[in-house]
């Protein structure tokens, strides 16, 4: 592995801006992200795009004119993994307030945009792409409408440079039907749940906001500029997705009906722990689901102990479009474990290729970027990586080489550096 590294240093560019040399990946086992695998593949990359994907067992390969040829015999090639609903780059150290930039004050903030706070130099990012995660949807949190997300490449000089799809969607936290009351006067120690007395008002307010925003955006001459309404324009013309964050079955039903009533073109449920109970509704209304962290405990003691592991399979069986996220405790640093969430989904019902799709092509579809990324197909971005083994299993996940838009990215990180430093101190191999 060491040797390989040395060989590659010749063309690894640290945070480069455009691919200059063309590359051919030869003889690798290509997992396309589409559900299919090519056991002996030839993948050509030029100008940041995949130019050809050839199954050597079916088609005779003509080694065209490539600047670099990389032998991937026995190795696995995957499309870059996409982390949806992520706060990567918005938070550095959970307990330190100064490092937190994902939650703005206020409850209705569609105009608040995550992209401009995205820190390309977050030390966490370099530890994440090391495991094959190469794109992320940077998502604001909190309030009822948290703001607008953007999709970024996990390599870039600054947020402008990292941006992949700007302002892709608006995030709505569906009001909870039941909320916690607090045990103490300072609202610090949560107690038991109780009915949310403001639920009706909160949903009515939401309806009004959406009606008003729609009307505003249809008005020919706007009397006075409203930043919030303007930020929601894309929801009504289909250029943006409404991401509704909710887990509870009844809330999902309410949220889906809400989206229908308001003529939202594209809606995705985020979280969706109970989504398996309402699959008909989701399928019939073309609502996709970003499944909350697979490595979770079930919600109720009566639940199947493996329910979170099986949820992707249940949605797959029901024909609902879904992908996997990694939101939750310590989510930024845990992003590097996203491939293993898919691995678990494969252990509990999905095929390995279906599981891979749930963190690549399906994610791209849900985020509206599948035209250019999410799978290894000619014409798409050359955002992919090579692992010596099955990337969904921590036992074999070992990413040697990764490209974002054809540019090989630096897979080193501070943690590896510390490791090397102390190995040296103790004189270990």
């Amino acid at each position, binding site marked *: 592995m060491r040797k390989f590294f040395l060989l590659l240093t010749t063309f690894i560019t640290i945070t480069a801006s455009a691919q200059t040399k063309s590359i051919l990946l030869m003889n690798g086992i290509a997992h396309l992200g589409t559900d299919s695998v090519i056991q002996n593949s030839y993948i050509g990359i030029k100008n940041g795009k995949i130019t050809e994907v050839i199954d050597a067992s079916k088609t005779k390969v003509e080694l065209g004119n490539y600047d670099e040829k990389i032998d991937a015999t026995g190795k696995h090639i995957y499309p870059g993994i996409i982390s949806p609903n992520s706060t990567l780059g918005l938070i*550095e*150290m*959970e*307990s*330190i307030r100064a490092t937190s930039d994902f939650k703005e004050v206020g409850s209705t903030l569609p105009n608040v945009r995550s992209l401009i706070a995205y820190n390309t130099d977050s*030390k966490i990012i370099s530890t994440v792409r090391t495991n094959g995660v190469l794109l992320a949807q940077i998502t604001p949190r909190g309030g009822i409408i948290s703001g607008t997300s953007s999709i970024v490449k996990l390599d870039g000089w600054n947020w402008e440079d990292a941006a992949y799809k700007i302002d892709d969607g608006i995030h709505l936290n569906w009001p909870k039907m*039941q909320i916690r009351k607090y*045990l*103490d*006067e*300072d609202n*610090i*120690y949560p*107690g*038991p*749940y*109780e*009915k949310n007395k403001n639920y009706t008002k909160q949903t009515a307010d939401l309806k009004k906001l959406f009606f008003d925003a729609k009307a505003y955006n249809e008005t020919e001459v706007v009397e006075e500029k409203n930043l919030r309404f303007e930020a929601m324009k894309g929801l009504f013309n289909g250029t943006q997705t409404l991401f509704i964050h909710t887990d*509870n*079955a*009844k809330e999902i039903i309410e949220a889906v009906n809400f989206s229908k009533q308001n003529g939202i073109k594209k809606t995705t449920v985020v979280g969706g722990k*109970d989504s398996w*109970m309402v699959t008909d509704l989701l399928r019939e209304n073309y609502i996709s689901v970003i499944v909350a962290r697979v*490595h*979770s*405990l*079930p*919600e*109720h*003691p*009566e639940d*199947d*102990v*493996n329910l979170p592991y099986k949820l992707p399979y249940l949605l797959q069986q029901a024909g609902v479009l879904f992908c996997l996220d990694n939101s939750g405790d*310590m989510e*930024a*640093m845990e992003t*590097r*474990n996203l491939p*293993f969430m898919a*691995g*678990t989904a*494969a*252990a*509990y019902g999905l095929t390995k290729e279906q599981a891979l799709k749930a963190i690549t092509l399906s994610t791209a579809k849900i985020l509206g970027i599948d035209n250019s990324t999410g799978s290894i197909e000619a014409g798409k971005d050359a955002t992919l990586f090579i692992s010596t083994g099955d990337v*969904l*299993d*921590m*036992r*074999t*996940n*070992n990413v040697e080489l990764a490209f974002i838009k054809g540019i090989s990215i630096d897979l080193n990180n501070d*943690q*590896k550096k*510390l*490791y090397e430093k*102390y*190995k040296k101190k*103790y004189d*270990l191999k």
Partner: protein
Amino acid sequence: MKNLVTLVFTLLIGCFSLAQETFPVNGTTNPNHTVYAFTNAKIIVDADETIDNATLLIKDGIIIQVGTKVSIPKGSVIFDLKGKSIYPALIDAYTNYGMPENKTIYKGMLPQMGSNTKGAYGWNQAVKAETEAFKIFAGNNLSADEFRKLGFGAVLTFQKDGIVRGSGTIVSLADGKENLLILSDKAAALFSFDKGCSTQDYPSSLMGTIALIRQTYLDADWYKNQTPLASRRETGGEVNISLEAFNNLQMLPQIFETTDKFNVLRADKIGKEFKINYIIKGSGTEYQSLDDIKATNCKFIIPLNFPIAYDVEDPYDAINVSLTELKHWEMAPANPVAMEKYFIPFALTTADLKDKKDFWKNLRKAISYGLSEKQALRSLTSTPAELLNISDKLGKLKSGMIANFIITSGNLFDEKTIIYENWIQGNPYKINDYSTIDVRGNYDFAYGNKRLYQLKIEGEPDKLKGYILIDTAKTPVNVIVFGNSVSLNFNPKDMKGTIRLSGTINTESLTMNGKGQTPDGEWLDWSATFKLITEIKKESVKKDSVKKDVLKYGQVIYPFCAYGKPLNDRDGFNKIIYDLKTRYDAILIKHVTVWTNESEGVLKNQDVYITEGRIVRIADDIGAPKLAFAKVIDGTGKHLTAGIIDEHSHIAIANGVNESTQASSSEVRIGDVINPEDINIYRQLSGGVTTSQLLHGSSNPIGGQSALIKLRWGKSPEEMKFAKADGFIKFALGENVKQSNAGDFSTLRFPQTRMGVEQVYYDYFTRAKEYDAKQKSFEALSEKVKATTTPFRRNLELEALAEILNQKRFITCHSYVQSELNMLMHVADSMGFKVNTFTHILEGYKVADKMKSHGAGASSFSDWWAYKMEVQDAIPYNAALLTQMGITTAINSDDAEMGRRLNQEAAKSVKYGGMSEEDALKMVTLNPAKLLHIDKKVGSIKVGKDADVVLWSDNPLSIYAKVEKTIIDGHIYYDTEEDLKLRQEIQKERARIIQKMLDEKKTGAATQKPVVKKQKLYECESIEKEYLREN
């Protein structure tokens, strides 16, 4: 007009007022020594003795005589109670009647380290041994009346505030001056696990509460044996009102309030330590753990607080009602009969009822579930009297006892029975306003010149309903009885308007007659003659069949939650006590790949035979087992490993994982608060975990004592403990102990810096050394000398630290950065102890050489970082580096979710640092066993070791590996096939009870809304604020 009786007392309450010897009189004195005779009554002397046609004679509030041959002195007032019954008045052994209200003061966010009680009291505000209920008791006729209406004559009352609540007093429920109402001034000592209104921070957890109670017993004992008060000042002794009072409480019956069945066991454990058999105030959940409850040998005071049904019409909402709640709703009324069947002595109380008026309804429900009427009566009369040492005065109708009794229309427990009178200390209190005569019944009725009709009068005595029956037609009649007068109003079918009748009731001839007016104003005569009918029998038959229906309720499952199992299908309550010696499983696993963790490494195609809880044989081909009941499992293509051991877990802990209020809490013990009903035990089993070390949190430098459990799902807290394991204690360093992330108000408790942390250790260990020396020299004294020496005060906190110095307790220390690791090793080296394990230890790789020479082990996370400042240099290569440096390294969870994927966490070291797969697996099996000093018993697959093994579908380090079977002590505790069955059973059982709830709601019963419940998951930093306030 059956049972016509007029008990019209012309002597009113004023005349009965109890004489107050020492009080001046305003006006003329009114001495009264009238003798009252109640004749021809059925007298229920107690649950076991009934005398028919008997007389009760009372004078001056005392029973003079009871029996059939009572001679009534001349000049007695005689009440003829023909057809009536007299019962001893009921006793409630657990009330707060007449007590001042508890005032909760909000103290704000700042910590309160000491007690706010002014004066020479003890150090903890929640120990209120000095409270004496009889001194603060103030009678309250309104609340007394609530009790009297139910038939109660006397109650134990106390101030429900604090962990030690002082003494309770027995008072009569009569109306009058308190001086004469108190029947026993100091009747019982009261305890609880609830700190009540105390604003002091300590204790903030259940385990802290238990430690506080234990230390209080020790302190009180020491205080008792101190030098006499007078010479104390010279010897440096102290005056302590709380401890003095605590000692004085010891001669009383000791009552301990509990809020669930496991708290009963916890209270009992304290009791046994100090040679006390508490009377337990139960919670109504005792039936869920009867064997353990019975084994305490305690007596009980049991509430009748049966839960009301939930609104389960909406299936999505109904999901939020847990199986535990559903089953408890169905089974709670069976609690008293369960206790009766198990011969556990118990009194019944109105305590915990939201509305006291539900008392009779619920008691009758309990009877319909099978509670015998005899037991019910005993539990409300003689048993509470015996528990409170007042059976010479209360609870029976015997001469010399206090004249507390009730007069009823019949069997007290019959739904139709009316309590007429409640006599307390010889004073009558009317329950139903029956100057009213009971006129209910069937009559031949005639008015004017009309023919004979049937008149039926029914309903409650104060809400009568009447009907005139003409063939099948019913004409409603408005019936009003006042004194001896009766008025009837009705609209006859053949007349427009209302006929109004007024008449007199003749109780001798069982007739009513008088005059009335027609709608036209014409006067007429009317009469009604009572007649006996046989209708009643039919009703009672119906009732019996209802009873049988109610009795169909599910079985107790162990544990009492989802994925629990009934242990016996014959009786709803029986639990088989598992005796490993006589009942064991035998399992033969064939053709399996065995990860031995021994020098043999990974062996392919092996047979492993397990029986009597041990691994008996590992060989190529073992053949068929000799034991007929042995289970044979085909392990082809599967992997067998030792059970996973989680060195750092916070599952299965009740009410608080941190006693965070002081820099040291070495006196608290997780072992006191094991919660065997945490669903996460089952979930960990599904991930192959067989042993978990339950650790105290990390909020103070010296935390609490750990508990080591095997995940024996369905067993009691004590049965879960890993037998004969070494004791451990949690220490902690860094941000948590200096409260860096605990908010802006947490800046008072020492230490606030890493500098202070060091000093905490030096200070405590210096004191512990001195303590240890003192204790050893005291123990060395002869008994004679001991008796004359100032007694040694046992200090639970220092005792635990002395155990560390004596290598009897071992440290697991929460730690992150290299500076603090270095510091603690220096402290340890200089004070003469070792740090057994550094846990978390994310910067361990920076001081691996120092750890090696100190001899510490490591228990770490695989890849966590970036959640706080002190983990910024955490690297996923840590475990691999430490292992390479020769340090015993484990991977732990500190998290209920990750706890069931520890095999995957271990596998990450294959990825980060290139560890061998065998070494990686050892990090969650053999290495933690070594760190916990249990590697002789568990941690590898070796003949003779405990049969704690896991069968995996795949290479255990692979993400695709699933647990198929988790075996502990040779018993299968998790099995994928059985899991599926259990899920189906849960669904069936839920559906059954939900249908029953819906039926109950249709009858108009009260219901409650289901609410979402999220289990509190503990990790190191979890701090529970006033956890008991939720109760």
